[in-house]
């Protein structure tokens, strides 16, 4: 019997699900290995009977929380897909402000009663990672996920292997690719504390790593912050680097 896989999404850009489609010809191989029973972005069918739930997106409102708990109850294995599910996503930046402040900024033209907490679609969106709501078995990090890694995780799960998510900094793959270190050309980067596995895609194109895959399990955070300060960043600029994808680690309440 092929394992049944269901793919769900919450608040997200659905770019990670798109990476599954972006496996291109290999998606046909995937379809041979597992029965995809629900994948709203790509198929009409849905099912309540699945072994593996792959969930993209952050959990924002009470109605989302309820839906996730139902998914968890049905799934044997629950996988958090991408930075939104893993860390809360860039939208977690909105948690800096109160729900009312956010809504005022975005929906300033609305009648207040239409967007009040009485309307469940608008009730206090606070973005959180999946594991802040339910137990998560495995995480495929990244914004977006690395599709090659997605395939490897699937193979690992089907063969009884621990999913091979690296626990070394981005610097490792960056150095192996013989990139010029941004710090040596006047830039800064979160690579030394950020979890690798992305093949250092951003620094390879000259962009700084923003730690979209979260931090390694034992980040040398103090040393990293000292380095950013040494390279001339103000406290505010350092905070910007720390909060792009990883505000989960710095949020006072509800973070790790």
């Amino acid at each position, binding site marked *: 019997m092929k394992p049944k896989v269901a793919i769900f999404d919450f*608040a997200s*850009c*659905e770019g990670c699900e798109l*990476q599954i489609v972006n496996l291109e010809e290999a998606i046909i191989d995937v379809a041979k290995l597992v029965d995809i029973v629900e994948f*709203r972005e790509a198929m009409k069918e849905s099912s309540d009977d699945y072994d593996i739930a792959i969930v993209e997106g952050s959990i924002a409102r009470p109605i989302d929380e309820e839906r996730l708990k139902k998914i968890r109850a049905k799934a044997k294995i629950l996988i958090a897909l991408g930075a939104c599910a893993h860390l809360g996503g860039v939208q977690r*930046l909105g948690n800096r402000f109160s729900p009312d402040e956010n809504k005022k900024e975005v*929906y300033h033209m609305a009648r207040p009663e239409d967007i009040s907490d009485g309307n469940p*679609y608008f009730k206090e969106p606070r973005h959180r990672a999946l594991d802040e709501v339910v137990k998560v078995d495995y995480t495929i990090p990244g914004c977006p996920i690395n599709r090659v890694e997605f395939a490897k995780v699937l193979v690992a799960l089907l063969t009884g292997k621990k999913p091979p998510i690296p626990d070394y900094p981005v610097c490792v793959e960056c150095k192996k690719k013989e990139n010029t270190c941004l710090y040596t050309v006047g830039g800064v980067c979160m690579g030394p504390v950020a979890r690798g596995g992305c093949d250092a895609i951003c620094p390879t194109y000259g962009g700084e790593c923003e730690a979209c895959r979260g931090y390694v399990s034992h980040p040398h955070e103090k040393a990293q912050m000292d380095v950013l300060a040494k390279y001339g960043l103000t406290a505010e600029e350092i905070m910007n680097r720390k909060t792009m994808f990883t505000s989960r680690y710095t949020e006072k309440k509800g973070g790790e």
Partner: protein
Amino acid sequence: MKVHVEHLTRVEGHGDIVLNAGSGKLESVQWRVTEAPRLFESFVVGRPYHQLAQITSRICGICSIGHTLASLKATEAALGVEISTQSAMLRRLALHAENLQSHILHIGYLVAPDLFGAGSVFPLIETHPAAVHNIVKLHRISNEMSDLVCGRTTHPTNLVVGGVWKVPSEKSLIEIRQKLVDCVDTFNDVARVVLANAERLPAFSRETEYVALGSEIEYALYDGAIASTDTGRHPVDDYRSVVNEFVVPQSTAKYCRHARDSYMVGALARFNLNHDKLTPLAKQWARKFGLYPVNCNPFMNNVAQVVEFGHSLEDSIALINKMLNRGLKDEARQKITPKAGHGVGAIEVPRGILFHDYTYNDKGVCAKANCVIPTNQNHGNIQKDMEAFAPTLLDRPGREIELNLEMLVRAYDPCISCSTHCMKVRFKL
């Protein structure tokens, strides 16, 4: 009878369709956007200019290149940054890559199952292997072009304020050009399959205002002024007078209206406004499908996407030829000096016209942001189309009503994450 499609499938994001009818009369039909709001316009406030494109790219995984480019254009307008001709050409190529990827995804993976009477593309692997392989091939090569120009297909790493970072090598451009040339026959095969099944698209029509970028020199995608089939041209900076955003309680996405109660953006709008600037391959397919301006059948948006695929394919080849003729050169990274300013970036993304509007303080930190997404602009029109279309369906079985309403929403290729970020129809009989 009640129809409630909760979390409509094969669209990007979460949206519901709710229909109530009694004794053959429509009581109400409503398009709801239920996606959790992500509030980008609020939390980009306080972020430095170089992070804006990276953050707003995350509004949508399918049109992240478009968001990146609209964002960069807004920032560059605000900071007074000019980009080189080579950078502008590469950005046009990036936009084509996304258009190709998004259109083939929509036509091949999301709409084709309706045309073949299947629930998804997966059963088609067995029943229509050749068609699926052709679709996958077109999708893959579109993505290869994104990888080359943008660094990756989703959330591009190579497009930055002031230009592009890494210029592709001559060798890699020649390779991708060859692949695109090989794709022309594959595209013709896929288009023929769509044409053979096009009679499944309902013959529905409602007079509509269409809005898109318009330009005298090209089929406007990267640059142009705002153009409307009702009111003619408007400068991009006046976008607020065109979009007129408002909020409805059944939707976490904002709605828009201009000359009428609603308007439509997207491939059909672009075709209706700019058809004369299409490439010969695209024009040829428009004729074969019987698509002539101004066409007011929203289902023909699917066909307009097929036509545009042909355009982006041919124009990409032409662009690459132009770039190879000019010769490629590495450009030094532009030094950006932060300053206070306001800028609007408008761009045509697969689903229609997109606006990013930023205000920066003197340190180059974002003080105010507004993003108007194509699907937001379409929500009102989806509602109006539904109100006109649903009454024509009431004599049919529930399943068919559901399917037709779903196909209507899907024809817009809505990108609901973008617009809040929505879809599913649930029936209560």
